[in-house]
């Protein structure tokens, strides 16, 4: 990673700057301010580009706050505000995690985005998928040259998420630097989440808003300044302190009235607003550096015990579907007429008898059904 200025966070200086600016956000002791400067920087896992390019990224983001650019959200039909944590009372995000002392924020930002998109696009707020950052960073990232010290790039991470996929946390639990010594479960191809396709939304805030409001989240990078480590709540705008490095998070909402993005970080719930933060439009390159969104997340896995809530059939052959709790609509196998009819019969019987099921889903289709 590039070596930015070395002066660490000074809480008194941040407090004074906030006071003179009219308290736009609130600072305080956080899980980051109590660390050494070296440990803080280890959590910034996106290498800053050369100074000229970093300056261009920050200037480009700042330019997007002009009135003309600010109007562009409505031009794509996006709502004025969206928060994946509260969509009609439903929370489509997963719990805040802690990357610990490793520059693996790209894995956390990418996985958090996949998890939110997987739940939101299924209309299943209680799905709560827990994907493996360890698989993404210590296997895919490692094969791409990424380490805790070097960090990675979201564009590379999304490529692996599309081409190979990521297993679930229980198949490769994360510890910083894999200090826990876990390894990838050999059955991982049968417990896998894969990005079907993704978009590079860098530099297009209207498209970012449109994607967040229709898919739940995007991943984004930005330049972290020293005052950011002490953020507690409010809308963050850089006031004081030198740059400390580059960081990747998941944007899960925005608010045009407040002029900010709503982000999910990976520095534990002891940092920020329960692990989340708001950052002003045009701040720190948040819209202009590696912004990506998944179009959908395909699953290949057993559902675990669940139940069939609804069934559907149309006037074409093998057109049976079942609505599964916390998964949404799944197509009944269309391998052949007999398998389709027998599986549909079993699943309708489970619905009629209110009996639990365990289904093996592959890309939105039920391939094995077990009715209890």
């Amino acid at each position, binding site marked *: 990673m590039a070596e930015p200025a070395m002066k660490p966070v000074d809480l008194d200086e941040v407090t004074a700057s906030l006071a003179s600016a009219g308290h736009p956000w609130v600072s305080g002791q956080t899980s980051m301010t109590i660390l050494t400067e070296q440990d803080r920087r280890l959590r910034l896992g996106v290498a800053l580009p050369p100074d000229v390019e970093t300056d261009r990224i920050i200037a480009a983001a700042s330019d997007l706050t002009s009135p003309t650019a600010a109007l562009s959200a409505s031009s794509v039909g996006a709502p004025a505000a969206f928060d994946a944590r509260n969509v009609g009372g439903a929370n489509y995000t997963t719990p805040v995690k802690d990357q610990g002392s490793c520059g693996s924020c790209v894995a956390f930002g990418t996985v958090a985005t996949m998890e939110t998109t997987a739940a939101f696009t299924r209309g299943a707020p209680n799905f709560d998928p827990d994907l493996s950052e360890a698989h993404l960073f210590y296997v895919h990232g490692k094969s791409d040259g990424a380490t805790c010290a070097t960090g990675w790039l979201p564009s590379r991470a999304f490529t692996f998420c599309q081409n190979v996929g990521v297993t679930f946390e229980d198949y490769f639990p994360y510890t910083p630097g894999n200090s826990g010594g876990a390894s990838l479960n050999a059955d991982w191809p049968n417990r896998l989440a894969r990005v079907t396709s993704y978009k590079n939304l860098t530099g297009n805030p209207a498209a970012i808003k449109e994607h967040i409001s229709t898919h739940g989240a995007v991943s984004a990078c930005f330049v972290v300044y020293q005052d950011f480590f002490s953020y507690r709540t409010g809308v963050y705008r850089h006031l004081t302190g030198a740059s400390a490095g580059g960081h990747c998070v998941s944007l899960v909402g925005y608010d045009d009235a407040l002029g900010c993005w709503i982000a999910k970080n990976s520095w534990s719930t002891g940092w920020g607003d329960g692990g989340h933060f708001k950052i002003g439009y045009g701040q720190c390159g948040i819209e202009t550096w590696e912004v990506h969104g998944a179009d959908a997340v395909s699953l290949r896995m057993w559902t675990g015990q669940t139940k069939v809530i609804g069934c559907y059939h149309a006037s074409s052959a093998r057109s049976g579907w079942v609505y599964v709790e916390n998964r949404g609509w799944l197509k009944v196998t269309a391998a052949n007429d007999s398998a389709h009819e027998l599986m*549909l019969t079993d699943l309708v019987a489970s619905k009629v008898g209110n009996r639990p099921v365990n289904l093996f889903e592959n890309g939105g289709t039920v391939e094995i059904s077990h009715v209890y």
Partner: protein
Amino acid sequence: MATKTRPSEAPAETVNRPRDPTAEELSIAQGGTSAAAAVSDLDRPTFEPPGSAAGAMASAAAAGWLTNKHVLMLWQTTAPTDAWAYYDGGVGWKRSTQAGDVAARGMGVLTAGARASGGIVNAYEGAGGAIDAIYLW
């Protein structure tokens, strides 16, 4: 055309001449478009479960759909695609899809399940009067 039967009625008379075209068939003959294009949109479900915000919106906007019904009776003769279901709410007997044996059998599984469970049904009545899609909740 073969003799047609209906549940709860005496067999209909044998039809010895081409039946009168439906309004849709007439429209097609005159160069119009078929509702079949819309039916193809039925190939995958779009409604969400009742009670969800999306489900309520879908039901309210369900033009062409019989919504929030129950299946009270079933009828089947020896003909392969002669399954009928009786819907409540003043709807009465509706024939299941005529789009082929396989589709009719699949839909029959749902209507049988609807009768057994007493669950809520949303059904789409196609241009020919047959049920071309069905949800069971």
